[in-house]
């Protein structure tokens, strides 16, 4: 019995070491900015850097815009597919998976070609237009995660019957969507939102090639020119990502507890 358990435990130990050792090493290195002692000096420097605040603030804003626009696009789309167009679900699933197989650099070059200043929709001619384009790009990158999260949420409720019940009570599409469907897929939408946030905060390719002052390019810039600060930034980025994952877990647990009561 003991022998048979050794293999799995060994695999877990190797896997944990593979992920944790670089993380611990990075953290340990980030504490060594002051010679001969451990300190959070690198974190203080990073957090006090106006460029950090600006880039992190910018990325947060773009992430929120991506989430809002993504939710407004994806929830009604996934709802309509679940309600009326189930036959095309495999096609939609295929389309939503495309961002996973098409590299971000291909997407951004496509954007630059299609929306350049001499095109019909010259989005990159102005900073705000480019911000919008960046948001659309992030929506595309987050599509596989957001769509799957929302679709899973919608499949867990009886969308058709709830819609019909609301309709029979006099509700129009707006009321059905915002009073019945959205609240019942709230947890799924939040999961998708946190995943989107985590993706957007650290994204480099789109932001760099569209020349936007986002957190990803700032991380790269610091990494190329400083020693300890990039490690501190990497830990900060990890904490943000993990916080998002933790929030997904918390909301997910809340949902499971609710379901268990049924």
């Amino acid at each position, binding site marked *: 019995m003991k022998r048979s358990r050794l293999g799995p435990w060994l695999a877990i130990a190797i896997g944990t070491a593979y992920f944790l050792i670089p993380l611990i090493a990075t953290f340990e290195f980030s504490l060594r900015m002051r010679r001969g002692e451990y300190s959070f000096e690198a974190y203080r420097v990073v957090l006090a850097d106006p460029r950090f605040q600006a880039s992190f603030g910018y990325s947060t804003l773009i992430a929120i815009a991506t989430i809002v626009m993504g939710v407004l696009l994806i929830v009604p789309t996934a709802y309509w597919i679940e309600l009326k167009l189930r036959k095309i679900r495999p096609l939609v699933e295929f389309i939503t998976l495309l961002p996973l197989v098409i590299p971000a650099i291909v997407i951004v070059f496509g954007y630059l070609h299609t929306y350049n200043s001499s095109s019909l929709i010259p989005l990159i001619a102005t900073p705000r237009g480019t911000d919008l384009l960046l948001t659309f790009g992030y929506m595309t990158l987050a599509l596989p995660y957001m769509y799957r999260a929302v679709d899973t949420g919608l499949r867990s*409720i*009886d969308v058709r*019957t*709830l819609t*019909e*019940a*609301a*309709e*029979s*009570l*006099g*509700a*129009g599409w707006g*009321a059905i969507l915002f*009073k*019945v469907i959205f*609240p*019942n897929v*709230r947890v799924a939408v939040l999961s998708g939102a946190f995943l989107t946030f985590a993706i957007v905060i650290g994204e480099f390719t789109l932001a760099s090639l569209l020349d936007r002052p986002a957190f990803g390019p700032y991380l790269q810039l610091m990494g190329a020119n400083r020693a300890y600060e990039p490690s501190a930034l990497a830990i900060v980025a990890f904490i943000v990502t993990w916080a998002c994952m933790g929030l997904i877990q918390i909301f997910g647990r809340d949902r499971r507890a*609710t*379901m268990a*009561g*049924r």
Partner: protein
Amino acid sequence: MKFLEIENLRKVYGAQVGVEHFDIAVERGEFISFLGPSGCGKTTTLRMVAGFEQPSAGSIRIDGRDVVGLRPNQRNIGMVFQSYALFPNMTVAQNVAFGLKIAKRPEAEIKPRVAEMLQMIKLPQLGDRYPYQLSGGQQQRVALARALAGKPQLLLLDEPLSALDAKIRASLRGEIRDLQRKLGITTIYVTHDQEEALAMSDRIVVMSEGRIEQLGTPFEIYNRPRTRFVASFVGTLNILRGKVIDAAKGVMRVDEQDVRLAQPIANANGGETRALALRPEAVSLGEARPDRNALQGTIEDVSFLGAIVRIRVRFKDNLISLDTFNSSAAPPPRRGESATVSFAPADVQVLEGAEA
């Protein structure tokens, strides 16, 4: 003018016919059941009345107004679903208030109306609970209150008791009927349970393969089934095959023994084979009175079921099943014994259509 008029309703899915030749006129305050097996078109018809399905042809008029072109939320119809369909994110009170809020009724009206509805379904203390905290029966009561809160002109119930256990089903069907009578609301009830339909309805529409097989009161449907389908679907029935001897006088021959009917046989020719329906409770064992038909046969099987003894009597080709009450003074007959069964001419129903 009737309250609900459905004329020549038809629904096709590609080459497949879902419903056709569906005509019915329902009085205000009437309780009508659509009864039939799965796939007979009863739910499709209900969904067309609700507006969830668009008819391929035909008209649906509610209180004189053609509703075919209207969306479900414009028809002022209350609907109760088999799966309850309560909104999981709302409390019981919020569920009941939903339609009233959508209709933008003032808060001063909504609160007392919700309280009244909860009182009506005998769950006044559960307004703050969420649907998952209720039993199936309680959820269906709430669904009923929600459907009725907005005072709809028509109530549609789509197999509302199917997901409940037998005991709750029996008590809830009584409650639904009482409420319907009290409110006087015109109601269409879809079910595949003949007992439910017989117990609750003013009239029953028996459906098969998208068509109406028979429309009538529970008494008519049970005692005067028109077709073999209705006879076999509603209740337990003996179906005998017999030859028409004299259609005008209502005389038939079953396994070389004459059977008299209470009336002439409609649309029948002499020598034609027709099916006769006979309820087990109309048949007695060992009684040969001049005003009753009597058939001689052999006891083929006796099943002792406690209070009831089920006896099957074999004739030449036909078989009759009958139930007698158990009596300690009279032991049941034994297999192989000869027996006489009798029944009144009025209890025999000749089914439509010649038999092959």
